């Protein structure tokens, strides 16, 4: 008993976030995800503190742990100084490490997220990079973004930005040596390895489903089963 729990306990976020939950429900009461998904953070904390490996494994393979938006509103209110949000983060971390994330529809999204966000960081030094933020994939970015996207250089110049420019400023081109350092950090701290593993797991899943990587990505990006929601 408690093998998975022990693995979780290695995570500093769990050490910080779990202090004997009394199931009072303050976290769920104000949780944005609990309102719009079939989700109850209190239950998750309770399962983790039960140290029941079977239940924890179910969690790690489920959609449930992927509903949280990591807004950390739960942290403010907990009377026991728990942090449901941090507990979720360590569960997600373990789910990714063990490759369980690929089992669930929401967990699978890590495939795309890891690919996009990490390459943004490694390629440009930013999490978000406007030239990779396309209106086609983000129709909600509005007509104004549709216009901006077409005239990114002009808009940035007009607004005092420094898109892909030298020296400091908004959206400047970050010098290569700095990007090298970031890449080194990724290598040393396990981020590169994780990217690889997540990529492989995704491609394997795609093959299992008989899909090309593109089809798989398309599905993962758009799919949303109504079962996630309350009706």
């Amino acid at each position, binding site marked *: 008993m408690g093998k998975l729990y022990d693995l979780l306990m290695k995570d500093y976020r769990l050490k910080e976030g779990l202090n004997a939950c009394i199931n009072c429900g303050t976290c769920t009461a104000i949780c944005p995800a609990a309102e719009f998904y079939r989700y109850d953070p209190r239950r998750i904390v309770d399962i983790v503190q039960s140290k029941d490996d079977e239940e924890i494994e179910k969690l790690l393979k489920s959609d449930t742990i992927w509903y949280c938006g990591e*807004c950390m509103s739960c*942290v403010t209110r907990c009377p026991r100084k728990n942090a449901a949000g941090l507990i979720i983060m360590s569960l997600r971390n373990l789910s990714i490490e063990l490759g369980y994330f690929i089992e669930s529809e929401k967990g699978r999204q890590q495939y795309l997220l890891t690919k996009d966000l990490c390459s943004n960081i490694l390629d440009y030094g930013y999490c978000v990079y406007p030239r990779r933020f396309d209106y086609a994939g983000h129709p909600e970015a509005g007509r104004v973004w549709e216009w901006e996207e077409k005239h990114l250089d002009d808009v940035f110049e007009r607004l*005092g930005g420094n898109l892909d420019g030298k020296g400091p400023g908004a959206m400047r081109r*970050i010098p290569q040596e700095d990007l090298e350092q970031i890449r080194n950090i990724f290598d040393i*701290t396990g981020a590169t390895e994780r990217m690889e593993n997540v990529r492989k797991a995704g491609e394997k899943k795609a093959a299992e489903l008989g899909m090309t990587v593109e089809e798989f990505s398309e599905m993962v990006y758009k799919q*949303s089963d109504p079962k996630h929601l309350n009706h």
Partner: protein
Amino acid sequence: MIYEGKQKIWSEYQKEIPDDHYFYVRSCIRQSFFPASEATFLDITRNKLGKDIFETEHHTTCGGIAYHSDTIPQETVMTIIARQFALMAKNGYENYVCSCITSFGLYCETMETWREFPELEAKIRENLWKSCKLEFAKPKFLIHASDLIYKYRKLIAAQAVRKLVNVHTGEPLKVVEHIGCHYSKMFPSKGVGGAEYPYVLVGMIEAWGGEIVDYPERRHCCGFGFRQYFIKGNRGYSLSNTHKKFESMEPFKPDLIITNCPGCPYFLDRWQYVIAESTGKTYGQDGHGIPALTYEEVAGLVMGYDPWDLGLQTHQVGVEPLLDKMGVEYDPAKKYLGKNGKDIGAPAPCSCLK
């Protein structure tokens, strides 16, 4: 609502904000969507307030968005942060000012975790040395850029050319504040005014003549949720959270929303557009939306910056009704011009939102 009660709480959460010599790090989202806000911030601090604020081209993202999307390990993000701290130290600064709330929260969390688990700090130190041959020093003060504007809100008010007042009625504008979740929800003492009644934006609104509106869902998240926005299949969550906030603030008829988080103005703006375009509902007057501005933009407006220099045209919700109320003079024709009056066209009109 008993104002004195809030004052009492505000008085208990006064964080120390240093006077000068700041090391500035940018926000990925703010740079991408509101580059003028950061530009305005630097201009106000440097040129209007005469402060030393330094930015280095070598700083990068803190990795916070990737971290909160669970794509990189905690160690990775901590080492990136350590690298930022190293850059600060290298350039001789100890007052760390970040533009991003996610970063701010993450820095606070990192420092707290290091404090509690010194072995982790040592590990990160080692990681940083191995990867970048750098050594870091923890900042003496960690502040958010909005803390700085808050600190100088009265000085700004003194230089202001207008107030947050409806010039036609003389009534103060009704302003809704929205604080980024990671500003103080994790560490109430790290934010001006705490977690329940943050004062950082309220202080600005008060100083600049506006009337603060407190509505039931004020504390609720805008719904960004990292992975909940980046993946299209999850965006219903993000949208619904903003929707909840707007439904709650609607009866209060606010003129303006002011935010201190990079993502929030984007979401509070764009989700109004999506709600309008998909359900037909708008929350402002006569089919308009409620402008959701950054605190830099609002500071710029009261200080008399040209609205199109402030980048107000990059909001999907039209700001013209607000500008009219405030008595800001603007040239509608110049709204979508490029640099030096270059005609680069204009966004296609929306079908519902004015």
